[in-house]
């Protein structure tokens, strides 16, 4: 008989209370991506605009010749809009496979055979994508606000534009939640992340192109609500108290975004199951 039996032993330790599985899923997903150099490179690249804006704020605060670079509320709106390109690439790269890969590997029945609810699974996956997207939108925008205060050496600009903090937060979360739920829903529809990525890009570009055509035909921009990126622009302008760029009422654009989130939730509810039933 061996001195120490390496066979199966019963477990007598503590077990975590239920309801934390989403955090386990999110943590594992984030750790997996952090191990990928290409993804890290994309993340670093997405912080370049922040550096440029920080230099701009430094110059405006310290060089009299650069007074024309003085910050305005529009600067933060522009920054978040510029980050849209990185939001797109991160969504495709980091989000397309979130559920598609699990479906390909039949992992859903592993997840759901554990004490994990479908909502926890979806929320865990959502948290992964949201974490990355907030890292390139909300975090740098808020940091930019802090950098402005630090370089200016006073809080005059911040005090004069107190709405900026909630505006940045509202817009960043609206964008991230909309984009993340839509991508997650698309990811649940296929087992191929490549196909999901292409589908996501096609939907965005097609809706933008369709709006471009309709704009020419109708001679106005009242139909901008058919394109999600334009809906985000419209609502973003309203949140930042800037002149609206399209004729569509911003509540309509917001309603479209809310509807998209609701439809994505419905798709996820239908697709995330332990057993795929083809009746």
């Amino acid at each position, binding site marked *: 008989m061996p001195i120490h039996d*390496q*066979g*199966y*032993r*019963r*477990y007598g*330790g*503590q*077990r*975590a*209370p*239920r309801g934390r*599985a989403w955090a*386990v*899923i999110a943590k*594992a997903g984030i750790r*997996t991506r952090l191990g990928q150099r290409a993804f890290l490179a994309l993340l670093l690249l997405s912080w370049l605009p922040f550096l440029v804006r920080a230099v701009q704020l430094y110059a405006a605060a310290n060089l009299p010749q650069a007074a024309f670079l003085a910050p305005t509320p529009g600067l933060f709106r522009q920054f978040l809009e510029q980050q849209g390109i990185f939001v797109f690439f991160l969504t495709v790269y980091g989000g397309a*496979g979130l559920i598609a*890969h*699990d479906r*390909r*590997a*039949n*992992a859903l*029945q*592993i*997840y*759901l*055979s*554990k*004490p*994990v*609810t479908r909502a926890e699974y979806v929320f865990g996956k959502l948290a992964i994508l949201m974490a990355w997207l907030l890292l390139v939108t909300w975090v740098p925008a808020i940091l930019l606000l802090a950098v402005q205060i630090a370089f200016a050496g006073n809080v005059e600009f911040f005090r004069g534009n107190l709405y900026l903090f909630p505006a940045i937060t509202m817009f960043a979360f609206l964008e991230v939640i909309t984009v993340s739920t839509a991508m997650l829903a698309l990811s649940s529809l296929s087992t191929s992340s490549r196909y999901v990525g292409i589908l996501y890009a096609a939907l965005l570009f097609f809706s933008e192109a369709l709006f471009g055509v309709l704009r020419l035909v109708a001679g106005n921009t009242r139909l901008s609500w058919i394109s999600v990126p334009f809906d985000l622009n419209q609502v973003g302008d309203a949140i930042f108290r800037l002149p609206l760029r399209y004729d569509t009422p911003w509540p309509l654009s917001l309603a479209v975004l809310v509807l998209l989130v609701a439809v994505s939730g419905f798709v996820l509810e239908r697709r995330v*199951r*332990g*057993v795929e*039933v*083809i*009746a």
Partner: protein
Amino acid sequence: MPDSEPVVALVNVSVAYGATVALRDVTASFAGGAVGLLGPNGAGKSTMLRSLLGFVAPTTGHMRVLGLDVAKSPLEIRSRVGYMPESDAHIPGMNAVTFVAYCGELAGLPPVDAMQRAHEVLFYVGLGEARYRNVETYSTGMKQRIKLAQALVHDPDLLLLDEPTNGMDPKGRDEMLELVRDLGHNKGVNLILSSHLLPDVEYTCDQVVVMDKGSVAVNGPIASLKQPRGQVFELRVKTRGANIEAFIGSLRAAGLDCHATDEDVMRVFVPGADGARRLFAIAAAEQAQVRHLRPSVPTLDDVFASAVGEA
């Protein structure tokens, strides 16, 4: 849960996938220890296991697992149950030890304990040396083992094993059956082994529930089901004009159960005593020559064949 209460109980459970009925009014109970869930493909075994986990909601009836109602406490049940699915399943992009530890954490184990148990369980299932390899590079047999490891990592009170030897080579199959037998008999883990392979169930389990076409055909302790309630004979006959079907028809008309085997010998179950005399009498009446007649011992194959009506 009182000792006398079954580990799993189903009462009038029916499950349908659209128009296809997978389970028909099933009432069954699974005692503690190792229980085999036996049946041909499409009998409803996997559906039953999935229903017990709450993956599929029954259209009628109710189920209890470890004394808990499946409809009311699915999460509590899943925290005490380990499930090894039939199909290839893993979390993509992870090596074996990370995958198993992750499953442990999902089941509620603290990260350090989950990692420690992942190492232990991987050694137990025979993947100790390959535990740092990506699961996607595993062979079919190794994938079966890793599925067992993820089902075991949180130390379940009940294991649901769905065709655990699927796709394994003979050596790997024997090792897997040895593991299952050890878990059920030496490690105090209750288990339900779903299989269409009689030898697997006979080797690892003490009790069996035989399913056919979505219903329970027979259930009970294997030893008791194999108890002779008559005599079993191996029989080979030569009939006039090769009319073997008529001879089998006569056997059945006389109340004898008759099943073909892989060879040209049939197994005939004769209720009561004086079986050989009755067989000779029927053969004489049918003008068939008895070429081979040997008393045999009832096996689980006979129980299975009798239950599912195989000819």
